[in-house]
């Protein structure tokens, strides 16, 4: 992880701005809020005009964005590397599926439950992870991701998980009062509201004293400890919160797809989330949504260009994006805004 220049952890820093940028490059808060408000309004209006398939795709973008935000809290803000988030996503999805399939509970309960289960597991996994640094932590979480599909197939758990056959999840239906809304639109709005609340919570967490502590640990753990921050506690809690976010995304994913199987939650999902994280912008909250767009659409674009060479084209697009936006989408936007405003001092530093 790259370290962040000293002035970046000054108390008055604006949240979500962990990527190194000169202060001059920042948008004024008013403009920033205006843009966010605009995006939210568009997000609410889009399904009215979009086809149900596009609505479904956008739901998936939001879900991936939320999962990437979970990873970003851990990796981008706290500096702990994870290749294991497919496991938390899977645990969240299975929690929702089991509650709906085996116990016939309402889908709304599954969202906090999946988050809670993942928080506990993430917190517990964070304890041994404390002893591991950087690449070793990556390997430990990689092990988690590799183990997850097999655990889901494990014989003793088959009564709950359905083993290799997976579980069918009844999808939410729009409530009777809102009969004009299709099921796809309903699921989109449920997802959108959950995502908005959770993005807002993440932003306020990062703005807070706790958020500054989390980032201080990333930047210099010894200095952070010297300032009186309980590194172990914050790191394990961040692990738990990160798993909470990704677990909620998993539950929403199970609702959107209507089916869970061990093959849905392999290491490839972890890698996709990591790609989305870097593309969106390490340490950027809104960038996560761009990461979600990339994860969903770019493989489709690559496939549309050539079925046989889809993997190669995906790689080329990925490289191009990294060259054009070395600090991710969020860094690119800041850079563009600064340019437009006439500030020349800005240079997006690569990560």
């Amino acid at each position: 992880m790259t370290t962040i220049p000293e002035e970046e952890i000054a108390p008055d820093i604006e949240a979500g701005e962990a990527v190194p940028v000169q202060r001059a490059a920042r948008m004024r808060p008013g403009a920033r809020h205006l843009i966010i408000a605009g995006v939210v309004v568009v997000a609410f209006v889009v399904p009215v005009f979009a086809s149900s398939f596009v609505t479904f795709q956008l739901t998936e973008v939001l879900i991936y964005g939320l999962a990437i935000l979970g990873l970003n809290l851990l990796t981008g803000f706290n500096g702990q590397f994870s290749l294991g988030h497919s496991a938390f996503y899977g645990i969240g999805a299975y929690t929702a599926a089991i509650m709906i399939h085996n116990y016939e509970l309402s889908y709304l309960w599954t969202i906090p439950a999946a988050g809670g289960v993942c928080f506990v597991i993430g917190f517990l996994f964070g304890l041994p992870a404390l002893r591991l640094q950087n690449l070793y932590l990556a390997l430990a979480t990689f092990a988690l991701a590799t183990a997850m599909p097999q655990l889901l197939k494990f014989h003793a758990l088959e009564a709950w998980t359905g083993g290799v056959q997976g579980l069918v999840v009844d999808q939410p239906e729009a409530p009777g009062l809102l009969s004009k809304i299709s099921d796809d639109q309903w699921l989109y709005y449920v997802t959108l509201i959950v995502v908005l609340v959770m993005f807002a919570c993440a932003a306020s967490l990062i703005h807070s004293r706790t958020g500054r502590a989390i980032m201080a640990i990333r930047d210099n753990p010894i200095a952070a400890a010297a300032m009186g921050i309980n590194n172990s506690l914050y790191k394990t809690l961040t692990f738990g919160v990160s798993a909470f976010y990704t677990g909620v995304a998993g539950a929403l994913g199970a609702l959107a797809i209507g089916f869970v199987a061990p093959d849905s939650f392999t290491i490839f999902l972890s890698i996709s989330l990591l790609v989305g994280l870097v593309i969106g912008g390490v340490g950027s909250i809104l960038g996560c949504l761009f990461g979600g767009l990339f994860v969903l659409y770019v493989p489709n674009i690559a496939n549309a260009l050539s079925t046989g060479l889809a993997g190669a084209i995906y790689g080329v697009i990925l490289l191009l994006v990294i060259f054009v936006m070395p600090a991710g989408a969020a860094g690119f936007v800041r850079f563009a805004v600064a340019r437009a405003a006439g500030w020349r001092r800005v240079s997006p530093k690569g990560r």
Partner: protein
Amino acid sequence: MRQLTRRTILAAAPAALALSVPFVSARAANYGPGVTDKEIKLGNTGPYSGPASSYSAVPKAQTAYWKMINDQGGINGRMINFISYDDAYTPPKTVEMVRKLVEDDGVFLVASPLGTPCNSAIWHYMNEKKVPQLFVATGATKWDDPKGHPWTIGWQPNYQSEGRIYAAYILKNKPDGKIGVLYQNDDFGKDYVKGVKDGLGDKASMVIVEASYETTDPTVDSQVVDMKAKGVDIFVNTAIPKFAAQAIRKAADIQWKPLHVLSSIGNSVGATLKAAGLENAKDIISDFYLKDATDPRWKDDDGFKWWSSFMDKYIPDGDKTDQGYVAGSSLAAMTAQVLKQCGDELTRENVMKQAAALKDVTVPMLLPGIKANTSPTDFAPLKQVQMAKFDGERWTLFGDLITGAVG
């Protein structure tokens, strides 16, 4: 001509309209979504990337098959527009791509999507939307469910019925043996185990070892050694080629000579037996429903000659020892048969009606005598296999065709 006044024309017009309108609308009603006078749009998903990309031969062969059909003038004069998307063998991607096919591309039906988890993920959706999920490219048993899922139909003999066929063979030839089963810790592996046990019925206790492996394991040597140590004398080997070959070689290394039954997924001469050493594979028993493309016995067979020329012309860079091309072209040929049977009544309802009314249908690369049969209560088109014994060089088919249907 003088009689043709304005008034008579005015009077005649509604009559003409009345005659022509029902004709037009009746004709329109005969087409489902994705069908025109010129074209039928078909959808498909397959693993072009990801961990199962070695199966991509199956959708590639289908794509090539439809190209050939179009070169020959299409089906009943309509060109086939075959749209195949990559799902990387991940169920969420399958759902997304199939929704794109159905809602965005507006395909008439989805033909032979590949993979058990992938088909499971769209199973509910297809049946809710009433879009045919025709001849799925997986051998799970659950696709034969005409009552619960009338829009989904299977294709190949399912793994459970294969397991039953092995059980029947064992009961007949070695009824007092001790059975060890090697299986992949996975859907099809477990289907095989269930089939064998169901087939043994009250003699299921003959199975004394059930050893599983993961696709990520380096070897299955310890499982094989363990079976020998426990006194197993009937070895049911349902592993995929890599592990099946290891097991055959290990058994030879430790001088273990059980009655060795090898499942159809691991019985390729090129992929398994050569790797294991042909001399080690002598006397192994297996079962077939498609012609083995590497078997020289078929070189004068009309079906094989057709397939070989099809490969040369449409997939010149394809590996002819890859059975995926055999399976893919056979799947597409079966779909073509259903579309032909539909004639000009190309509705989704009629597709399922015709798919459930296959009578002794055969396609070039099925073994001689094996025929696809379905009925409104039977959605398992292929049920027959033939046993074969390996003579050290090639498989020799023996006995009659065996049916092992699981209802």
